[in-house]
């Protein structure tokens, strides 16, 4: 193996950094967008045709752009936000824009699964729309939301591999630059094993939490 342990460790750290920061901001955007997409739809508690018909296609557009394209397409925007268009931090901006809309769809699905009768009961109690979201929709969808977060985190791990295109670093980057481009199979193997372990751990944590919340 041509790469040393220090490179692998550093790359692991970069991957963790990108995933956690992008997950944090992506979740905020995703939860906010997802809730808005649910409550503004027809017949829901804050029905608003204008907001819904603007947000819905925007989310679709972001969902349909391949990440590698998004990464380079928004370089000017990235520069505006973090002051540079290369490096680990620069990779986080497109990661957030990639994962936020994706997460919003998952949040939307989770919230729509909540029994409509619960909302009716909430309305009958005289709950405000915000109370309905906070006290009824989110708690009832919580277990399902945890699984969504898990899915999103795993998608992020995959997406960070492409961050190498803008010098983002991370395990995927190591696999491509050291492993693929220099024909070093062992490096590829090591990084892939690390990524697989990553995903396994994340999924188990997600499942454990979800089971705990659902009390099974």
């Amino acid at each position, binding site marked *: 193996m041509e790469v040393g342990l220090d490179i692998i460790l550093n790359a692991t750290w970069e991957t963790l950094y990108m995933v956690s920061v992008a997950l944090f901001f992506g979740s905020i955007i995703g939860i906010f967008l997802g809730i808005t997409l649910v409550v503004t739809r027809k017949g829901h508690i804050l029905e608003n045709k204008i907001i819904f018909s603007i947000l819905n296609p925007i989310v679709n557009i972001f969902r349909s752009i391949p990440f590698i394209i998004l990464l380079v397409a928004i370089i000017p925007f990235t520069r505006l936000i973090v002051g540079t268009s290369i490096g680990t931090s620069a990779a986080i901006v497109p990661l957030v824009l990639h994962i936020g809309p994706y997460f919003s769809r998952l949040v939307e699905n989770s919230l729509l699964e909540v029994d409509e009768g*619960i909302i009716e009961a909430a309305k*009958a109690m*005289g709950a405000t729309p915000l109370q309905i979201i906070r006290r009824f929709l989110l708690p009832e969808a919580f277990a399902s939301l945890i699984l969504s977060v898990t899915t999103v985190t795993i998608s992020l791990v995959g997406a960070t591999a492409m961050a190498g295109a803008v010098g983002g670093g991370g395990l995927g980057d190591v696999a491509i630059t050291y492993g693929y481009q220099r024909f070093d199979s062992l490096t590829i193997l090591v990084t892939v094993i690390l990524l697989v372990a990553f995903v396994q751990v994340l999924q188990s944590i997600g499942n454990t939490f979800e089971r705990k919340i659902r009390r099974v």
Partner: protein
Amino acid sequence: MIQFHDVSKLFTGKNKEVVALKNVDLTINEGDIFGVIGFSGAGKSTLLRLVNLLERPTSGEVLVNGENLAALSKKQLRTAQKKIGMIFQHFHLLNSKTVFDNVAMPLLLSNVKKSEIEKRVKETLEFVGLSEKVDSYPDQLSGGQKQRVGIARALVTNPSVLLCDEATSALDPQTTISILNLLKKVNAAYNITILMITHEMEVIKEICNRVAVMEEGEVVETGTVLDVFTNPQTKTTYNFVKSIIRDGIPKYVYKDLASEEYKGRVFQFKFLGVSSGKPVISQIAKQFNVEVNVLLANVIELGDIPFGNLLLELTGSQHEMERALQFAADQEVMMKEVTKDGSRIRYYPKRNLGNVVHG
């Protein structure tokens, strides 16, 4: 008190309009347990949802304790809704919360103090008989227990009105009775006006004092349970009544009546209230020279009032038979003679007139 004044409700779909309610006029008095019965699609669910404004009337007005909720601001409306409890067929409890948290929810929404919430929730759970389930989750409870939680949740804010949306339709008969008894207790203990919709005649029979029958968005009959049940005016009502009072005539009776050798006459006796407690039948057999044969008997309780339905075969001389029938009429029994071409109504004169006829 809940009043409906000429209330109509239209649902506008893509290409068609559906009339859910047509010119409904209805008054539910304070302290009533008022039942609304109808087949699915009759509009009873819409009627109920107009009371707490989950649906808005298209025209007309609904007054709850004299207040028109549709005229209130959003904030005022939410305050008014807190004074109207509601329970549901499928309970609609939060599965992610304990029984305590479910019941506490309406108070939490009103920012009631924690110590006050604790006190009220415990009291209410005790009232519905679920004190020991305070830390359970809804999915650990039976259907009847879930509905008790639903009732506790509806009562915790001390409402003046309780709306029941098919509250027992998802429960087995035994649990239904226990929930109905609880509702009776709620009504008696807090003088809460209860408006319940159902398609089950048993429910109306068990606890309601007044009833409205709905069909295709209209109230076709309304009155005390006793009046409506014993003297149905429409086919729909009759069909509902039939589901608990089997007053149909068995086929073999007609077959017997049609035969040449048959000597007897068949009468349908309906006893109301106290008269069903009196031994009318045995007295007829003792006092008059007639043979009495009971073909069919059915006694139920409507509210607290017994209601009996008997099919009797009488044989004897014309004179004795008339005297026996007159006697029964004096005991306030409603009578109908069954003839081979269908029933024909036959009222007997009241006591004073009877005295004249028979000297």
